[in-house]
């Protein structure tokens, strides 16, 4: 583990170089431990893949004359030293996301399926048959960075991004898959669309997903999509 300044108001805790389920467990365990013991002046704790950012207010830390960054480091190191015993991340929730694949909801499904040498039905079965881990939330509010796309479905990004991708679109970009929470421009291949709202600031927990969750996509019909409340 090493800790480096991320500017003058944050510290980046780097737990290792690689990514994957194992290091994500360590990251989430430590992030959870830091969250549980956070002190005055700590603004945000952001886990992502193999790092945790700790955002702090340099004016509220360092009251005893100690540099604020050193204070953050001591806290993180002390917590990490004991993390093995107490900060076990329980493994996250399992979240099912209904997806209407293909048709108008997923105009690029034929292209993705052809690229994988599969029928559309088999491509849908492959995409909806896998478990995806949320490694981080970012890019836009509520957007999950998902790991676990079956290699066969990996498809390079579109040469020309679409100026507007509808909210809820499920896409594939390179070896990643994800769900667009908002209507934005986007360069991923769109294979389907979920009626779920990924981010709603009026909800108690605005984002549907958290880092550490496991996502499974469930195919639904156009009729079910239309009726979804």
């Amino acid at each position, binding site marked *: 583990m090493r800790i480096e300044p991320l500017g003058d108001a944050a510290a980046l805790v780097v737990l290792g170089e690689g990514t994957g389920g194992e290091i994500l467990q360590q990251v989430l365990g430590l992030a959870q431990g830091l969250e549980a013991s956070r002190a005055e002046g700590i603004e945000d*704790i952001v886990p992502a893949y193999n790092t945790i950012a700790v955002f702090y207010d340099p004016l509220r830390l360092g009251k005893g004359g100690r540099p604020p960054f050193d204070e953050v480091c001591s806290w993180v190191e002390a917590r990490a030293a004991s993390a093995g015993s107490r900060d076990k991340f329980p493994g996250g929730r399992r979240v099912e996301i209904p997806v209407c694949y293909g048709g108008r909801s997923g105009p690029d499904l034929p292209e993705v399926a052809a690229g994988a040498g599969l029928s559309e039905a088999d491509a849908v079965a492959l995409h909806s048959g896998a478990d995806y881990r949320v490694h981080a939330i970012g890019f836009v509010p509520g957007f999950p960075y998902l790991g676990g796309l079956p290699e066969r479905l990996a498809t390079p990004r579109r040469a020309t991004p679409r100026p507007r991708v509808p909210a809820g679109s499920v896409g594939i970009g390179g070896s990643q898959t994800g769900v667009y929470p908002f209507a934005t421009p986007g360069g991923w291949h769109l294979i389907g669309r979920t009626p779920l709202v990924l981010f709603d600031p009026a909800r108690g927990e605005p984002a549907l997903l958290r880092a550490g969750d496991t996502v499974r996509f469930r195919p639904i019909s156009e009729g079910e999509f239309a009726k979804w409340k």
Partner: protein
Amino acid sequence: MEVTVIRAGMLTTVQDLGRAGHRACGVPLGGAADPFALRVANLLVGNPESSAAFEITLAGPELEFADRTVLALCGAEFDGVPSWHPFELAAGERLRFGACRRGCRGYLAVAGGIAVEPVLGGRGTCLSAGFGGWQGRPLRDGDLLGAGEPVRRLAAPPRWAPDPRMIPEYSAEPVVRILRGSAGPELFQGLVAGRFRVGSHSDRMGIRLEEPALPGAPPAGSLVSAPVAPGTVQVPPDGRPIVLLSDAQTLGGYARAAHAIGPDLPLLAQLRPNDHVRFREVGLAQAHAAAIEREHSFTLLRRGIAQKFA
């Protein structure tokens, strides 16, 4: 008190000092790109310094105020509107922003603050997700907003302004202080050695520097996405640095060559296309000392203003 938007201007949004605490679910800090100017503008009209105000970009709006009110504009300077000191408008009077003379973003504070509900702890507009501020979007012609009840009332706006020594050295070619990033010495040295032109695609998410492009940026997809912060200087594979501002996304996948220090973010927020910027290295202790000095001048300003309102 009602505020009618006669003309909205290029990009006028409601902003405050941001909404920390929700980065883990991808919500940017947000708030004023130049928090210094927003804080001073609020103080000058007797508001708490985090009150919601208008952030006005390059081509300003035309606004009509239903009642007599006290206003202050800080940051960018516009023809037809006084800067850096409070002024009064009569009931029904219109405020027309002329050409932007200096800087890029002006902050117009209204006594009582712009009355919008906080969302996730902030009153600023989150443009990427369309929430907060005024209906989650920039102002449009014909919008009708409200201002709150002033905490303290001025009989007549006093003729004073903050000590010019406390105002950041706004410039069309500022020198911005940076801390080393994790990307290694080559990109950092390139930043310190260069004089960079500000690109036209710069926005509240970041200042895009067009030239010179830096050699040595890692290729696309070679880095794991990791958290970034306002001030982070990212270098994408094309070598053209991006300095992140308050609406920056919470994670980035490019090389982090450096980080502009918090007290110099106002200098960046006031850059406009074709301005230039240079960078100078400082250490973390100097960055924090600069932040403490900035807060000290705010303490003095608050104290001075409290006396004026007494």
